[in-house]
């Protein structure tokens, strides 16, 4: 689950919430779904909180990337 892209995780989470809200799921399934939703909430939250420093790169003449900083974007 951690390997998934944030977009997929959010889509999964949204789907589960909708399923749960639709009702008529039996108890075991809804508890499974709930557990999964809580996992997704945590992973998504962690992903959002994970960027300590934004990654900004610039393409160099020799074909690689190097860190890029603008004067007031230190």
């Amino acid at each position: 689950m951690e390997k998934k892209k944030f977009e997929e995780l959010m889509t999964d989470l949204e789907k589960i919430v909708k399923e749960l809200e639709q009702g008529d799921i039996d108890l075991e399934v809804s508890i499974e779904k709930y557990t999964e939703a809580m996992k997704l909430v945590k992973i998504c939250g962690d992903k959002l909180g994970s960027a300590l420093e934004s990654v900004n790169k610039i393409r160099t003449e020799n074909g690689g990337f190097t860190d890029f900083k603008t004067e007031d974007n230190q």
Partner: protein
Amino acid sequence: MEKRYITVSTLNRYLKNKLDTDSNLARVSLKGEISNFKGHTRGHLYFTLKDETSRISAVMFQFNASKLSFKPEDGMTVLVEGKISIYEATGAYQIYVENMEEDGLGNLYLKYEELKKHLATRGLFNEEHKKPLPKFPEKIGIITAPTGAAVKDILSTIKRRYPICETYLFPCLVQGELAKDDIVKQIIEANNHDLDILIVGRGGGSIEDLWAFNEEVVAEAIFNSKIPIISAVGHEIDFTIADFVADLRAPTPTGAAEIAVPNIADLNVLISQYKIRTTNLIGHLLKNQQIKLNNLKNSYVLKSPLAVYEQKEQKLSNLVSTLNSLIQNNLQYKINKYTYITGNYIINNPESLFINYQNKYNLILNKLELLNPISILSKGYSVVKLENKIIKSAENIKAGDVVDIQLHQGEIKAKVEKVG
């Protein structure tokens, strides 16, 4: 021979006629620099058009001049169209201007309109080619100048809104002759990398400054990009060709960054809402199940299992009672009927019926007795018969007849001695 002299006006009229009938001069497109510009109070424009070595007078009448979208002034290079004719009063030939455009700019507008039409015809702007943008991009490519406001605005906006997104700058020239090829090169290069969105643009500037974004090669590179592109050319009012081809158009680089990434604060709110919603939901669900369970536990049957039998027993005994009372009723009815019948007077005193009949019989018998002609004899009467006929009158009998006299008891044969 005398020389013939003509008047000046004849000459000028002749020349005017010559020029007016020359089809080459009826519509001339001319490029020149404005000098001696004079705006008449009535709205007509008088000026001179010149190049390095030559000049011509020009007039633009009010009804044409009113359509100008710019203010002509000395030193301005313009493109004009009009006819060549002569003003008879001065004998000066001049150009009567119908249209006038600023050189360069006018050309650019023309090129812009042509290219826009051309690309629209080719379908490059069509909605079906627009690629959807991912909602949560993880890597964004930026194609713009590495210096200047545009890249700063984009990076700071992304950092503020969605710092978990990585950015990759593909530096390029954004104005001048070399800009278009540079932009194209970097769009192609960016497509070699795993990027979610490209922002292609620059800050605001004059139409000449922005021109690279109106070039056909740039439009094609944007169209061919596999990665969705947001155009971000800093000008609010006019669209560049790049704007029309791009999958999405932003009015400024900052706007492009805002479109490209979500706001992390909103997302955190959204996620915690999901958390609250699911927790509430599951809470409700569990509570409902608990209530259901309690209801079941408290149900009559589970609480007192014998009650079911009691109920059935009750039902059975009710049935038996009903049956009993039905039978009882039925029996009682019959008893009642029997009692009624046995209570009947006749049944109880059948002899009364007999006495009754006996009385009737006696009555009838008495009556019969009374009616018996013989019975009367017992009272002392006698019946006289003559030859077996009852004699009721003396006329029917004569002396000497032998009559039979019937008495109450016995008969007598007698001889009539006298009649009357």
